């Protein structure tokens, strides 16, 4: 087990009270697993990822523990956590386009960063060059400023930098959403390549675009309103989801080949709840066509079959996709 999260609950403190952004998250990610984390905006996927690497105010840990490679990760201790960051856990942030200091040459910034982490830049230099070439970047860009790079180049640069110390866990937050269709593909494929070359052990790919996950992830976890809804292998989630939300979400997605004139897709009526004061129990119940009395209790995130976790009181096997 590479990553083991137990009962992780994280709130955001605001003036009007706590936003319950992540509630009772239990999950494991295996070595070498690329797990896709999908859900709508505000479902808590970024909160989950941030709490694994940079949990700082206004985020507040309510409960839970995180273990990485069998050792507890001191996520609340900013200072002790520093030792793990970059080396054990790393992140490709959502804002990769602006992640680099605009007034430093990229190479210089990397050197200073590594130096501050007491890692010798010169010994890593050849590896860095090799990896840059792997992502089709010329080593010359180390002598450039971020502004001289295109969006896709910056994205790839950050990818290389974030994984330079071969972390066990890589959090890739919306790495493709700002990119053009063609770049999306190459960046996604590079993530797979990185895993293959063991630059990273496991990867959490956070995105709102499930079709990307279908292309690269081994497993997919669906979140809804701060709760884990379902996790299973990619094929299972796409083709045989068990949670009503997963099912409705996937069936609402337009696909090439589907036309309005021929097949009308339907969305899910209603809107996600506000997390400042969320409904108790299953948070999807207000929009769920199958909801029943039991749903006022919070459903456990349980392994229904091998590697398939669902948080729903309904009987499984209800929604095999036609």
């Amino acid at each position: 087990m590479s990553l083991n999260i137990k009962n992780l609950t994280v709130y955001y403190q605001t003036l009007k009270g706590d936003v319950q952004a992540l509630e009772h998250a239990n999950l494991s990610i295996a070595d070498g697993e690329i797990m896709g984390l999908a859900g709508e905006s505000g479902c808590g996927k970024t909160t989950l990822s941030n709490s694994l690497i940079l949990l700082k105010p206004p985020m507040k840990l309510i409960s839970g523990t995180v273990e990485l490679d069998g050792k507890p990760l001191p996520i609340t201790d900013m200072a002790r956590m520093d030792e793990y960051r970059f080396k054990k856990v790393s992140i490709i942030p959502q804002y990769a386009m602006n992640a680099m200091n605009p007034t430093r040459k990229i190479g210089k910034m990397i050197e200073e960063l590594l130096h501050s982490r007491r890692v010798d830049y010169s010994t890593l230099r050849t590896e860095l060059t090799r990896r840059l070439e792997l992502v089709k970047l010329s080593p010359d860009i180390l002598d450039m400023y971020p502004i001289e790079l295109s969006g896709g180049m910056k994205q790839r640069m950050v990818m290389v930098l974030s994984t330079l110390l071969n972390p066990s866990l890589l959090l890739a937050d919306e790495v493709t959403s700002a990119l053009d269709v063609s770049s999306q593909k190459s960046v996604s494929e590079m993530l797979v390549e990185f895993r293959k070359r063991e630059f990273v052990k496991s990867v959490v790919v956070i995105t709102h675009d499930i079709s990307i996950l279908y292309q690269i992830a081994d497993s997919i976890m669906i979140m809804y309103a701060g709760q884990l809804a379902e996790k299973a292998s990619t094929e299972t989630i796409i083709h045989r989801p068990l949670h009503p939300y997963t099912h409705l979400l996937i069936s609402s997605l337009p696909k090439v080949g589907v036309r309005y004139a021929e097949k009308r897709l339907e969305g899910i009526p209603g809107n996600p709840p506000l997390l400042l004061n969320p409904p108790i129990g299953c948070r999807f119940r207000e929009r769920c066509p199958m909801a029943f009395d039991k749903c006022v209790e919070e459903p456990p995130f349980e392994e229904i079959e091998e590697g398939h976790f669902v948080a729903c009181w309904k009987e499984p096997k209800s929604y095999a996709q036609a």
Partner: protein
Amino acid sequence: MAKYFRRKLLIYLLTFIIAVTVDWCIPRFMPGNPVDLIISRAGLKGSAVSQMYTFYMQAFGLDQPIWKQYLNFWIAIFHGDLGTSIFLFPSPVTKVILGAVPYDLALLIPAILTSWFAGNNFGAFAARSKRLDNTLLPLGYILTGTPYMWLGIVLAWAFGIAWRIFPIAGGYSFAMRPALTLPFIWSLFQHWFLPFASLFIVQFGGWAIGMRNLIIYELEADYSHYLAALGAPKRLVRKYAFQNAMLPQLTGLALQLGVIVAGALATEVVFSYPGIGYLILQAIHNEDYFLLQGCFLFVVIGVLLANFIIDITYVIVDPRTRAGMQGGAS
């Protein structure tokens, strides 16, 4: 990049032309004929008056048509000829001003630079430190609200009169003859210190506040979060934030130059420091429009030059302007 400078130069050129034109108007639109003033100052009497009147009208070119006078003014400027002072007759204005300029430079350059560096460093130090933010920075706000000359007055009163630590007038000891000796430089320093201090203190507050606000923005910037997520120590993050916040502060410096120069003028008056500010005041009180004209021109040229230097510095220190400069619509 060449384009950027072409554009900047265009603005500077325009500013210069406008400033020179305003400047040219000064003695011409002032009530009273400057030549009358010269004659009255020279204490001329009787027949000499009309004789000298014609002479000076010709000497200043005031008998020429207006457009010709304007043209001549430009030609004269490029010859470094700003006419003759009325109040300090017969000294050429250029000579009078050149005598004062070193004092201004000696006062302004160190005051601007040290307050800028010190203020920025202090602001960066105080930012996000709750205790300093709440105790020392309000002091900074108060300092920026202090009129330069009043601070000068208070300093002069405290250090010059009550405690007699520093002299309160002149450029160097009246008992000395200029020479590159230690006692002389020490005397120069003593006389320089209080005017410098009052300029320094007021500006220091402004820069400190500016830096504090900017660095907070920078610490909230994406790259700061990314560095933190990669476990970079606070020191590195703050260093980057500081360096990046310096850039807008540099622009701020350019914007503030006019105000600072104004402050220096007032401060010089308080301390009778023999710079241009003091000359301007004397020129006004003595209706010496040619001197006033010259001083104004010098101040404008000085500020323009300083602005230009800052522009160049900005391009040197900010790689973004170098890499991405396309003429910029800013």
